[in-house]
């Protein structure tokens, strides 16, 4: 059986950054397995700009951002296989994959980095009633058709969901000659970045209807129209508020789901809130030597943070390979406890001995809070109390911890993170 020190599942932004970081940390035997025909993942179809402001201090398009990582990976002679689907990973880290040239093959890995990304929620997951005609696309599928293949999915468009891909596609479809009639959002706030609402909707006079959803779909062959209705505070449509829109296209941007079928298959413990693996400060799962990063771990807004997180996972995978058994020894685990407006944290546990000097804890909030504080309690003592003018579910939040700070609390059991009203 072939063997590599580190096998990385997925050659998108997370996989690339993890591979580069692992290699730079001194592990030579690194292999990326990518199911698509090129490296770069979903960035290849994100031809708009706005990527890389944090990482490179300049605005790049998705393919440009990916290109910088691909170039680095090539300079470092990192091995990769394209058009290769990972079918299964055993708990002993035997990776079974398949491609056209080699058929089915197995690779024994010492460490595995899960970087498979996420998929879009479909219409079915929302249980939207009505007919099932052609013309209903997830926003990402439409983005691929337009940006990679040059095909128009339709002419008159309604978008359900104000996630970032939906917002970006509202502008893209307008550029390409379609009429975007409205963007509807079930929640009373947008799920996307504020800058995208301004730059993709407001600038093109595309209305955003908050607290609205699609309640009917018409058209037996191709989509002919949809009905929007306002929803109450429980998300239930309010009778009498229905409005009909004629359209031939409905784009859905209603959430992303980490693709963890392979992780589940190998026995990785999942966090039901993120639908991603539970990880510790090293971004290691419950299976020793199996790490996770990027959107397979939790859905991000900005690729810069994916790259940063994946760098951490890659470095820790390399440490694991170098140290072997010693990697796990020593140290006490501190539990992260997200409550009161904080839905989850990544990581979920912290081992002070093993953590880097600085650790970023990322999380999302469950609603919109204005003039609030993000607080962290070390057991009962409030240690972090940071004022925020506004926090919203569409923008990932973070707190920063240092090893030095945690070492001052030798008996620390739990760090509670919460939103506190001013």
């Amino acid at each position: 059986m072939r063997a590599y020190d580190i096998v990385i599942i997925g050659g998108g932004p997370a996989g690339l950054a993890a591979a580069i970081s692992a290699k730079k940390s001194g592990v030579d035997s690194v292999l990326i397995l990518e199911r698509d025909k090129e490296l770069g993942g979903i960035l290849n179809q994100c031809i708009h700009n706005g990527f890389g402001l944090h990482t490179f201090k300049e605005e790049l398009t998705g393919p440009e951002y990916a290109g910088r990582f691909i170039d680095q990976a090539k300079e470092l002679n990192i091995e990769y296989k394209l058009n290769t689907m990972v079918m299964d990973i055993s708990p002993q880290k035997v990776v079974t994959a398949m491609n056209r040239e080699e058929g089915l093959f197995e690779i024994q890995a010492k460490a595995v980095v899960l970087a498979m990304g996420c998929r879009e929620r479909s219409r079915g997951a929302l249980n939207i009633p009505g007919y099932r005609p052609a013309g209903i696309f997830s926003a990402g599928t439409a983005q691929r058709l337009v940006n990679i293949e040059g095909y128009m999915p339709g002419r008159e468009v309604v978008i359900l969901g104000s996630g970032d891909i939906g917002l970006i596609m509202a502008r893209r479809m307008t550029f390409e000659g379609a009429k975007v009639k409205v963007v509807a959002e079930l929640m009373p706030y947008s799920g996307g970045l504020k800058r995208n609402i301004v730059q993709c909707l407001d600038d093109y006079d595309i209305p955003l209807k908050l607290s609205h959803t699609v309640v009917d779909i018409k058209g037996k062959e191709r989509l002919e129209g949809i009905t929007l209705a306002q929803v109450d505070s429980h998300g239930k449509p309010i009778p009498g508020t229905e409005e009909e829109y004629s359209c031939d296209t409905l784009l859905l941007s209603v959430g992303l789901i980490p693709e963890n079928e392979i992780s589940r298959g190998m026995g990785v413990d999942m966090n039901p809130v993120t639908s991603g693996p539970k990880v510790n400060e090293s971004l290691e799962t419950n299976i020793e030597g199996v790490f996770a990063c990027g959107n397979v771990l939790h859905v991000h807004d900005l690729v810069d943070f994916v790259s940063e997180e994946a760098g951490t996972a890659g470095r820790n995978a390399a440490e694991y390979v170098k140290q072997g058994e010693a990697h796990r020894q020593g140290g006490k685990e501190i539990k992260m406890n997200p409550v009161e407006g904080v839905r989850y944290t990544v990581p979920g546990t912290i081992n002070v001995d093993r953590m880097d000097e600085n650790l970023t804890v990322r999380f999302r909030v469950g609603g919109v809070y204005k003039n609030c504080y993000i607080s962290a309690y070390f057991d009962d003592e409030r240690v972090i109390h940071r004022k925020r003018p506004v926090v919203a579910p569409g923008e990932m939040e973070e707190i920063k911890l240092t090893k030095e700070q945690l070492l001052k609390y030798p008996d620390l059991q739990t760090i509670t993170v919460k939103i506190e009203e001013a």
Partner: protein
Amino acid sequence: MYDVIIIGAGVSGAATARELSRYKVKACVIEKEEDVCCGTSKANSAIVHAGYDAAEGSLMAKLNVRGNQMMEQLSKDLDFPFKKNGSLVVCLHEEDMPNLQALYDRGVANGVKELRILNREELKEMEPNISDQAYAALYAPTAGIVCPFNLNIAMAENANVNGVEFKFDTEVTDLKPIDEGWEIHTNNGVFQTRYVVNAAGVYADRLHNMVSEKKIHITPRRGDYCLLDKSAGSHVSKTIFALPGKYGKGILVAPTVHGNLILGPTAIDIEDKEGTNTTREGLDQVIERAEMNVKNIPLRQVITSFAGLRAHEDGHEFLIGEVEDAKGFIDCAGIESPGLTSAPAIGEMVAQILKDKMDLEEKEDFIATRKGVLDPNTLSREERMELIKEKPEYGNIICRCEMVTEGEIMDAINRPLGAKSLDGVKRRTRAGMGRCQAGFCSPRTMEILARERHVSMFEITKSGGDSKIVTGTNKDSL
């Protein structure tokens, strides 16, 4: 001039065509849609009923039991997925026990084997997720689950290989008696035939009433369904029915033969014979009633919902036979549940009628078996490696959710009566039927369809007709 024209390429039409293809006969199936299995046959519970439901002595009861008995061998001969998983009719209240007993008695009278009434403890042991309110259940080990698409497709393919023609996108506009039989007018030409089989599903009354003074009436009875992800597929192992009672006809909860979980159907009588739209009320009812008999259904795992129409004839009975005042016109009408189960027996019965009338002779070269689209998962590792070496497309996964390869999609397109649309590929291979509902694979499947069928991307449809996927190229309207 044809000997027989079968109108409708659903499961009844396909079963009839397949049985008829055993004989020396010039036969054709005409279908208004672009593919087989586009109406009632594609959207139902996919259940092979044991046969205790239908009234004793009815044709429904007889054909149900016979169809159930034929299904296993047929699934082997024609290579479609079938599993005898057994069914349970759940009785929630002690006072309803007489109804459960009546169902048992009817089943015995209909010739259903191995029926048993289980008490609460036996039931709990067999099906741990059954409702805590469950009092008892009727257990029918002979009930099963089937892939409705591949049952229909397999019979049609096999009929085609044995010489039956198929004409798609061909809708009947008129039927005229002629000296030796019938003239069928369609949007795709005029055809003459000695015999007509009316297997037109919800439209069977319209065709029947064109030729007969003895009118029949078929109500499209809509059934809404929810389908759950494979991660929920083992929530129950048997098909769980509600005991028909004060809540009306119940909602079933069942594993599908492919490992999903299905909930449904509602029973809503409508006018529109194309009214396959789900409604909020319908979907809510599915969920509410499903939860009466099965607890902890992981509803967050719903991946799609859909509706199908049963062809409910006013007398609730299969109408099979030559129409009294229309010689040579054979009805195969009112085929609602247990129509899917009964299909092999319906085919046998209609073919027998035609054989007797025309004194048909059996073919010596009838091909009784058919191989379905090759599923590489059924191969040994060595066989799979050999296959990929020979045809590298079998090493290229197109549908990630269902792990369908390019090789399988090419097979589905290029075989007899091959797939022409995304839905055609989906029904034959399951590509696009998984948790992402074709979000990822549809552009790739479109490319394969365009390449293999030598058409442009603009010609590719979801399901024929005007269901085109892309409408032009970027900026073409600017």
